[in-house]
């Protein structure tokens, strides 16, 4: 090292990111060597690094042997704790629970058991907090998302985690830490977007869709998944921090991460309405600065949007609509087939033409019931959402509508039922979507749906066609009651079949064969209905063009579901208590009971 390097200002970005800088002081490269890497720690060591001193306890650890019941039948070796460490202890004097995902096991994928550990721990923390003993939660999110071997149970687990997180968040802070190296992708990136405070390192990544699935679905011109510079420019920890989608950027050092967590815990809860996922004003105005036909480079977004999560300094632009408008040739290539059932059923059930909130989000009112659907918009300026995918503006429109209904009914004795009509091929797979933070937009929709349910609106979901993955998480899976048509065209899953086969290293035929004995893997709605969260499988004559009799059948089923939801609890616990859940979700229930038994009551 030359003498000159010692005089480089500590603001030198590279030095800071590598941990060589001292605030306001000279660069000291030996600090890089002295630090204790947080990334190199396993899930347990990460949790221990954050908790104060000795005295922390692991709940539902390996010797409780709460492993996944679904992996061994698929010839996959299970892990004894299913890859999530639940550690109780104290952080900076506050009771806390750390939920640490082991990224080395199944890429941190969320399965039935690992998901139940996270959601049930959050619920126990919420119960203690409500009783006057706040328990902060720290989520160490290193995950590729839903574990595809447990597809529909994993997808549901994410919905339950989001609801539990939102139950705790007003009572005690929920801190998300994404350190790397897997990052936070898939369903749990939505949970990241719901957190009180998000801490990242430069090695972290946060995104809804990983680069590889975007390239596979949309082509290499849309996203080159072999280009690390591009990936970190879009999803990277520093970019998320510089564009206000993360709150604290720390170097890969266990002490630095711990100090950041302590600071966030000490800062306590965020006032209602101020969480990122509640700031629809920011979401709307930020999206208005982007014309997808001529999108800004990721670096430009830092000045366009600014580091604070506030309405952006950059100007609003006029986005060009129309099916020919795209930034590069083939940008709209897609394997997704636009579904027509969402519109058909919305019109039929409402008995009147729906009102577009935006062209791809329809609202219809019948008596005191509100119907909401996401439908294809072939002219969508966000060109990756033209086949009915749930994209950025769809989430914003859903969230805005749900918030408006909740606000309108604030003083009503009986809140209006809200029915989500679901026929959507998935969330939108695109580079602009990830750059703009699709996970954050979906978090806004999830937050709004949860808030409506908690406020007392009977939320009912009616699946009339496809209900896939992040799209279903954004629109449908927060409902108190879920109904589905008993029809071969109805498909509920964590990922479409070809991609799921590829990722789990199987052929489509092998996947179909396995699904016969492993219900959460199945694409058949009758198998899905056995998992414990189906509140009605409805037989209709024509699922594409509902007959008058079909409409009567479904309206009656919705009315029944509303009646069941009215006095019911406003959380999602019925999904664990249904008759089917008792049979099929025994592992989730065992986690719930064991965690509750081991949860300390020190006072």
């Amino acid at each position, binding site marked *: 090292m030359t003498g000159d390097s010692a005089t480089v200002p500590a603001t030198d970005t590279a030095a800071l990111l590598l941990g060589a800088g001292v605030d306001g002081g000279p660069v000291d490269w030996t600090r890089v060597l002295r630090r204790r890497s947080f990334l190199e720690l396993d*899930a347990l060591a990460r949790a221990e690094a954050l908790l104060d001193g000795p005295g922390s306890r692991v709940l539902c*650890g*390996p010797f409780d042997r709460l492993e996944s019941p679904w992996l061994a039948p698929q010839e996959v*070796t*299970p*892990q*004894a704790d299913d890859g999530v460490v639940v550690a109780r202890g104290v952080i900076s004097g506050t009771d806390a629970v750390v939920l640490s995902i*082991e990224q080395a*096991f199944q890429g941190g994928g969320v399965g039935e058991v690992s998901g139940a550990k996270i959601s049930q721990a959050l619920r126990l923390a919420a119960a203690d907090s409500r009783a006057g003993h706040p328990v902060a939660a720290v989520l160490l999110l290193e995950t590729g998302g839903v574990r595809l071997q447990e597809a529909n149970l994993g997808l549901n687990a994410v919905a339950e985690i989001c609801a539990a997180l939102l139950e705790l968040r007003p009572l005690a802070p929920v801190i998300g830490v994404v350190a790397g190296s897997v990052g936070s992708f898939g369903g749990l990136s939505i949970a990241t977007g719901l957190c009180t405070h998000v801490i990242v390192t430069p090695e972290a990544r946060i995104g809804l869709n990983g680069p590889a699935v975007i390239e596979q679905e949309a082509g290499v011109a849309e996203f080159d998944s072999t280009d690390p510079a591009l990936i970190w420019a879009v999803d990277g920890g520093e970019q998320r921090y510089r564009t206000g989608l993360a709150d604290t950027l720390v170097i890969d050092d266990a002490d630095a991460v711990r100090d950041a967590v302590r600071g966030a815990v000490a800062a306590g809860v965020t006032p209602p309405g101020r969480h990122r996922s509640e700031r629809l004003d920011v979401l709307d105005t930020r999206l208005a600065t982007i014309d997808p036909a001529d999108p800004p480079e990721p670096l430009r977004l830092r000045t366009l949007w600014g580091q604070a999560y506030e309405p952006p300094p950059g100007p609003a632009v006029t986005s060009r609509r129309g099916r020919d408008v795209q930034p590069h040739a083939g940008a709209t290539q897609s394997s997704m087939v636009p579904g027509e059932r969402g519109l058909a059923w919305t019109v039929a059930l409402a008995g009147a033409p729906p009102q577009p909130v935006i062209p791809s989000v329809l609202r219809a009112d019948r008596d005191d019931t509100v119907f909401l659907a996401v439908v294809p918009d072939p002219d969508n300026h966000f060109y990756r959402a033209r086949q009915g995918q749930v994209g950025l503006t769809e989430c914003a429109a859903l969230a805005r509508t749900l918030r408006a209904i909740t606000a309108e009914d604030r003083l009503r004795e009986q809140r209006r039922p809200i029915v989500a009509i679901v026929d959507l091929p998935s969330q939108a797979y695109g580079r602009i979507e990830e750059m703009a933070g699709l996970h954050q937009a979906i978090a806004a929709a999830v937050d709004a749906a949860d808030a409506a349910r908690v406020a007392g609106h009977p939320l009912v979901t009616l699946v009339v066609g496809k209900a896939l993955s992040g799209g279903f998480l954004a629109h449908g899976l927060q409902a108190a009651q879920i109904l589905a048509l008993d029809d071969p065209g109805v498909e509920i899953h964590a990922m479409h079949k070809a991609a799921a086969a590829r990722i789990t290293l199987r052929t489509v035929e092998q996947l179909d064969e396995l699904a016969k004995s492993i219900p959460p893997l199945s694409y058949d709605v009758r198998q899905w209905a056995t998992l414990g969260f189906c509140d009605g499988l409805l037989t209709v004559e024509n699922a594409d063009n509902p007959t008058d009799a079909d409409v009567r059948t479904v309206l009656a089923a919705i009315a029944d579901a509303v009646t069941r939801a009215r006095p019911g609890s406003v959380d999602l616990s019925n999904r664990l208590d249904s008759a089917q859940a008792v049979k099929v979700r025994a592992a989730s229930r065992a986690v719930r009971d064991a965690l509750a038994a081991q949860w300390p009551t020190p006072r």
Partner: protein
Amino acid sequence: MRTLQFTFPAVSRAAHRAHVGVVGSGDLEILFEPTGAAGSATVRVRTSVEGFDEVWQATLQRFFARVPLEGSWELNDAAATPALVTLRLQQAAQAAGGGASTPSAPTGTREAS
């Protein structure tokens, strides 16, 4: 996935149970409990790789000849090499407080605290 069962004669006792490792690619986790039939080490291996039964037999036999720690051993394996399996076994024995109580502990094994 393949499940294998082994039993080896064992003479030494451990103080407590131990857990090491993770079921990550090229790695394995071990759960050891000082319970079960006296005088033997019972081993269950679940491995994602088929066709290595004899390698498991040889690796485990070699280890338990040197560290005959009685109790129940569960190995959840994601294609670890024999060297790593042996390392993890030694770590588990050490963590259980039984790794050095054998007369013929291999050189390189640290004393258990």
